[in-house]
């Protein structure tokens, strides 16, 4: 005798089992497809961060095994390190000055290029070209051009009766010199802005014109709101790059100091002159690789990670007030 009710119950169970098997297969497939990314993330991102976090609680000179010292590195960082706060101040200066200037300058160039009628290709190439120069080569070039004694800039200024500054050799002018270098190389940001500006729908401008909007009002009420997601992207990227600013500062300090020894040992001149180019990543490098104090360098890096995350979060949260996504529902 067959129990009919048992058959009725087993069908939904079988169907459910089938669905769950399909779901597992789907999950397996997703995992398989994500596998390479997951492996990369774990090996090259998660593991180094976890290891770095551990090292930040140790005394580690790269040559002996790490020795646990608790929060001593963090205490030293906040209370005793004579270079910590100058490095923080220099980095904040860079964020406050270089990032806005880069965004404004790149946007300005993009707006001009978008309006150009003749020689568009030539101008786009000219403004983009500096971005192709390797940072080291570009910095070497700028240190040469801005050499206070023999550089062409000061020679020209001298002919005009102006006593040129010491540029990279002056604590007051070293950071502005790096800003000039940064503005010279805005090609990548400029190209992104140009694409965004050219992508603004024509009918919006036409509507604005019909409403009597002038060029400034069209910029203020049409262009800027439309490209605001791109501006946000540039600001976030600019801030992260400023927090990681290293190569140009490292090269400029060593070349301007003129002290690189025969073996290329340039580590004693980081921050030249007078710690004015000692940015936070340079400080990390100095402790890790000049003083072999990797435990402390790891602690500095952990703070940088947290600060970079917090700053990005603040900008993104704040951006809700001024960034407009087309088709977005508020």
């Amino acid at each position, binding site marked *: 005798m067959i129990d009919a009710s048992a058959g009725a119950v087993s069908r939904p169970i079988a169907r459910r089992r089938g669905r769950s098997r399909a779901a597992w297969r789907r999950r397996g497939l997703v995992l398989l497809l994500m596998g390479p990314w997951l492996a990369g993330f774990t090996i090259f991102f998660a593991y180094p961060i976890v290891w770095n976090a551990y090292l930040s609680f140790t*005394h580690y*000179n*790269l*040559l*002996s095994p790490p*020795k646990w*010292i608790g929060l*001593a*590195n963090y*205490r*030293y960082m906040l209370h*005793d*390190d*004579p*270079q910590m706060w100058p490095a923080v101040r220099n980095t904040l200066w860079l964020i406050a000055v270089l990032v806005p200037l880069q965004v404004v300058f790149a946007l300005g160039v993009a707006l001009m290029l978008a309006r150009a009628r003749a020689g568009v290709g030539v101008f786009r190439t000219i403004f983009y070209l500096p971005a192709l120069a390797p940072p080291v080569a570009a910095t070497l070039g700028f240190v040469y051009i801005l*050499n*206070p*004694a*023999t550089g062409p800039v000061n020679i020209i200024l001298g002919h005009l009766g102006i006593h040129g500054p*010491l540029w990279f*050799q*002056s*604590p007051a002018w070293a950071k502005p010199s790096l800003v000039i270098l940064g503005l010279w190389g805005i090609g990548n940001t400029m190209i992104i802005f140009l694409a965004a500006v050219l992508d603004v729908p024509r009918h919006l401008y036409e509507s604005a014109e019909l409403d009597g909007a002038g060029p400034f009002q069209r910029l203020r009420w049409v262009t800027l709101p439309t490209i605001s997601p791109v501006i946000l992207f540039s600001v976030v990227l600019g801030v992260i790059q400023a927090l990681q600013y290293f190569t140009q500062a490292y090269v400029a300090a060593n070349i*301007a*100091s*003129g*002290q690189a*020894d*025969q*073996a*290329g*040992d340039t*580590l*004693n*001149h980081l*921050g*030249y*002159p*007078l*710690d004015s180019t000692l940015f936070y990543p340079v400080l990390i490098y100095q*402790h890790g*690789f*000049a*003083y*072999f*104090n990797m*435990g*402390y360098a790891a602690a500095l890096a952990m703070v940088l990670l947290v600060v970079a995350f917090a700053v990005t979060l603040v900008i993104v949260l704040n951006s809700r007030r001024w960034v407009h996504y087309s088709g977005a529902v508020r």
Partner: protein
Amino acid sequence: MRRWTGIVLATLAVGATAMGAAAQTSSKAGPSAAAAPAKITIWVGWSARELKEFKGVVSEYDAKHSDVQVKVVGSINDTKITNAIRSGNPPDVVSSFTSANVGIYCGTGAWIDLAPFLKKDHISLSQFPKTSLYYTQFKGKRCALPLLADSYGLYYNKTLFAKAGIKAPPKTFSQLLADAKKLTQRSGNKLDVVGYDPFWGFYSGNVADMTNYAPLIAGKYLDSKGKSILSKQFAWSKLLRWQKSFVDYYGYDNLVRFQANADEFSASNLFERGKIAMLMDGEWRVAFLKAEHPELKYATAPMPVDDAHAGLYGAGSVNGTIIGIPKGGKNVDQAWALVKYLTTNNHALARFSNGIRNVPSTRSSAKSKELKPDPRFATFIKIFNNKSSLTAPITAAGNANLSLISQFTVKYQAGKVKNLHSALKTLDKQIDAQNAQAGGGGPP
């Protein structure tokens, strides 16, 4: 009988052929196995002309030792050495210009202890001068040996001296300042010729950690317990004030502008071009001048000393290149043989000294007849052997506390330090904290 004779002959013939073949085989295999030389690599800091000279010395060693083949890699600094040791794949022999880092290399075991090798080969340490022995060990652990040495003295331009009517090099700081003023030439604010450039951080002589001035003022960095005493010793603040007033005489900005285009290790060196009349520098400048500006008329003398310590005249700062065997090296015995040759063989040391004009680092090689006589170079050998000559302190922190001092002195010279004494006290605390941390834990 004939049959048996044939069998015996055939057997002997086969045996002889087999043995001949075996002998032939072994005669091939034997020498080829013995002839496979061990390939060893040595990393050094020298570059360009000096590296070529070093390669010449090593090639002689190579020719005499068929069991090894030495590869020389130049332009190596301490960061590269440390990274190679960490990676577990270091070269067989390493050398460093930064003798102050011996505290790290010996203290951590990154360079292996050479004592067993020295004992095995009956190498007496008494052949090395006392100062060189100090900067090649840390707390009694000898992980390095000196490979030529450096001493610092005064180079002066004889043409500029004659023009200024100066007949002899200065012997005290006050004479140095007075002569420098006579020798300096200006066009308005622009400095055309500088008598003596005292700027901290300008060239090797004025290395900002003040190590090259310590023997001239009887300055000590640490007390007997290893604590920093910069604020407690009047000599340091006196030196700093004297140096700053010297810089102020030229004008800080004027000096910076003057130094802006003057690479130290090239023909654009300001002394070599006749733009600086007096320069504190190492003995190697003799060879650089010969190669780059042989037309320059110059002479050498010990550095002037603090007026209050006139008896110190003749002393100077001393250090040198250190050489050792890194932990993890694969051919330790061959590496030691090379280190031993380079650091104790009179011919090798004399040849290399002639090539790059560094001070020979053993007592016997300093008297070698192979050394080419040159009175301008001889000055530095005398400075090296002067009993009052000093080297930088060796601590567990390596070069790090000297960097702290450098950061301080350049700030002071720029007028960024208001109260010198209290700032020196803070510096002492920072150095002590750094040494404590490097010595094994606690805050850095």
